[in-house]
């Protein structure tokens, strides 16, 4: 897939050259994550997408680890690596719940390479449509149950979106949901971005600077600061989360 990022048609034209990625987010124990300090409730009620680079200590963890997530008692979203190395997305809103999981393992046992992961969530009738991406490619997946358009619009939460865990309180995450490893270039879009756009972002092998991308609402470069490049909501390091220059994609 190397080089695809430059050949896929997309309204966004990235600054491919000259981007120096200096640091990544290091998450080395449960409770470590990056708090986006924004519930994004209205955005979650519409179509949206998430993009991030990850490097896991173990691609087949003993418990699911969440790349992104937020949870209340009955309103949930989360993208996670499962105990079988697959990637699953869970979505609960109103009285609806859906589980969307890749058919094949994305990761294998042990430390993984840097990998781009993404999910798009499209608010449509009759039911929400999901798509999981790995290194810019859409991955075959199976869906269990569904969230109707009506339920999709009932998502209600005072819990902030977290990168690297499933947050369920002010500054706290659900136990054993933290990613163990590294994350970088975490982004949230207020639209279900196109497969071509996701390929341009994640298909090139290394990150590009996506500042200015269409529908970009949050963009944390993790370059040794918590700044949201879009200016929507600066983040907060939770637990022992830290920035490091020891590993970066």
């Amino acid at each position, binding site marked *: *897939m190397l080089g695809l990022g430059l050949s896929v048609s997309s309204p966004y034209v990235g600054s491919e050259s000259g981007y120096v990625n200096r640091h990544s987010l290091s998450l080395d124990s449960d409770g470590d994550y990056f708090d986006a300090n924004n519930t994004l409730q209205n955005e979650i009620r519409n179509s949206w997408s998430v993009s991030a680079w990850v490097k896991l200590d173990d691609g087949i963890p003993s418990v*699911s680890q969440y790349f992104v997530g937020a949870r209340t008692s009955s309103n949930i979203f989360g993208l996670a690596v499962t*105990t079988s190395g697959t990637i699953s997305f869970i979505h609960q809103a109103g009285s609806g719940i859906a589980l969307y999981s890749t*058919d094949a*393992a994305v990761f294998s046992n042990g430390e993984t*390479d840097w990998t781009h992961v993404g999910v798009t969530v499209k608010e449509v009738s009759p039911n929400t449509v999901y798509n999981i991406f*790995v290194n810019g490619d859409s991955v075959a997946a199976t869906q*269990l*149950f569904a969230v109707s358009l009506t339920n999709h619009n009932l998502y209600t939460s005072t819990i902030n979106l977290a990168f690297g865990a499933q947050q369920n309180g002010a500054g706290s995450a659900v136990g054993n949901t933290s990613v163990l490893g590294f994350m970088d270039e975490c982004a949230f879009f207020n639209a279900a971005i196109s497969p071509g756009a996701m390929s341009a972002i994640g298909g090139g092998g290394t990150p590009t600077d996506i500042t200015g991308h269409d529908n970009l609402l949050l963009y944390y470069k993790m370059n040794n600061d918590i700044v949201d490049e879009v200016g929507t909501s600066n983040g907060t390091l939770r637990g022992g989360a830290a920035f490091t220059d020891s590993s970066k994609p």
Partner: protein
Amino acid sequence: MAIYTILTETELGNHSDKVDFIINRFVGLAKNPKRIMLKFEGSLPASLSSYNAYTESEVQAMRSDSTSDWYLRQASNSL
């Protein structure tokens, strides 16, 4: 000791603990028919006692058997 069971979408949909199982017990999905594998510690809850239980080694055997619905191949998404 982990113990596993498998429910069809219909069976899970009729279960009062459906949401809890999906959120906290999910291991994997299989197609045709659509089924979910759930993982518990120790033993299956009483409400699932009528379903087959599988040990860790049995599940690992399913995952490594290419003829099994639960066979886990690697996705071809490498760079």
